[in-house]
């Protein structure tokens, strides 16, 4: 191996682990935004209003077919142009949240569409309001088929957090870059970042699959 230095690894590991915390925080924050906003986008697209429905559809398509890194730049730099200053953290989480909200809205839509029409009718027959119908009847049934997609995008959001380094959020990639430019050693920091990502994303993906199975069971739907 090309002079891999274990002593250097031990030296930089604490900094990288600290940065892993920031990465998880950014992923978690972005995911929370995406979960809520995605649901709003999905439900709004079921409205009967044709024009707003089409505008929303196109917006979702726009967000999904343009690069996240460019969206991060856009949200971070456009604010100050109009006198709104967002911190890198805020801009980054908003960008990631918005980006994944577009993806999650598609997942939710699929889940909601998979609920049989008779469920809506039965809810009408016992006179539930639209809000009650969504929260108590439709969404609980839309959840299990959505879980796989939701889980995949959780892992996806986590893997996309390195892009936040471009605006200076102190997550893993940013820290590895800093270590590299201080020490002129790139082998250990970049390799460790890769290993840390693997160590988190592989078990998470497995966990998501387990969770999906258990939710199906508790809702009595298998």
């Amino acid at each position: 191996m090309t002079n891999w230095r274990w002593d250097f690894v031990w030296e930089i590991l604490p900094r990288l682990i600290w940065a892993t915390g920031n990465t998880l925080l950014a992923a978690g924050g972005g995911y929370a935004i995406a979960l809520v906003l995605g649901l709003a986008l999905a439900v709004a697209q079921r409205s009967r209003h044709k024009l707003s429905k089409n505008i929303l559809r196109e917006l979702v398509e726009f967000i999904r077919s343009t690069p996240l890194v460019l969206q991060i730049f856009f949200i971070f730099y456009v604010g100050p142009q109009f006198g709104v200053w967002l911190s890198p953290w805020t801009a980054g989480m908003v960008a990631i949240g918005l980006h994944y909200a577009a993806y999650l809205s598609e997942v939710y839509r699929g889940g909601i569409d998979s609920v049989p029409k008779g469920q809506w009718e039965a809810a009408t027959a016992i006179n539930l309001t639209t809000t009650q119908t969504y929260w108590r009847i439709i969404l609980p049934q839309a959840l299990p088929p959505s879980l796989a997609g939701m889980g995949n995008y959780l892992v996806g959001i986590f893997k996309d957090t390195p892009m936040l380094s471009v605006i200076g959020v102190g997550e893993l990639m940013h820290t590895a870059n800093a270590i590299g430019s201080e020490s002129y050693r790139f082998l250990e920091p970049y390799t460790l970042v890769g290993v840390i990502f693997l160590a988190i994303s592989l078990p998470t993906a497995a966990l998501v699959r387990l969770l999906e199975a258990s939710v199906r069971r508790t809702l009595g739907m298998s």
Partner: protein
Amino acid sequence: MSEDMTQFPLRLEGENAPMVRFMNVSKSYGELTVLDQLNLDVAPGEMMTIIGPSGSGKTTVLRMLMTLETINKGVIYVDGEPLTHMEKNGVLVPANKMHLRRMRAKIGMCFQHFNLFPHMTALQNCMEGPVQVLGLTKESARQRAEELLEMVAMSDKRDHHPSRLSGGQQQRVAIARALAMRPKVMLFDEVTSALDPEVINEVTGVIRKLVGEHHLTMMMVTHQMGFARDISDRVCFFYGGKIEEQGAPADLFGSPKKQRTKQFLSAVKEAV
């Protein structure tokens, strides 16, 4: 929609007021006319059965009454009040959400495919409406649900999810769920059509019991001719979006007057 709304009364009053009245009701999907100028009254406490070939519009009648379908023309009244419309400045205008919600409380429905909520137990299915819509406390809703499940002989399965119940059992729970809302009108839409032959009696038995013990207005669409004959006060034969013939079951089944009724009844008899 240039319909003269002044021909429709704002309310139905008097001793002989029907529980349900369809007045000049039409329904079409594009070119296809499903119901054509339907006039139909159902008296309080009456058990009225609709029979007819598929596509004759019989299920649509029930679905319109449950507000699952809108109507194109005419007015439907329930319990003296317009259902599909409401009064505004002395004329009837299409009902808004609030009005529909208030009126729907008078109506309960059971479906061909049960439509139980799969993520709730039998008991929870029956408590959902009373707690969420009627605002009952959990305890009183539970008590009411348990009584009804007792009535449909499903007490022992009350904590089961629908996926663990047979079709007949699910349909009995669905009847309890509808009754838990204390409706004035109950609608049964082909409730035995999706059931295996050997469990049909479980469900018809419950309906018989309801007719015997409760003073409910009921409308039923069914293919069980024997059951319809036994239980109904009146039978309507639908054909092509219209009532072709109606009358007491003994008359309609025993001596049908119209040619189409005869054809339909003999075709059904052969199938059995």
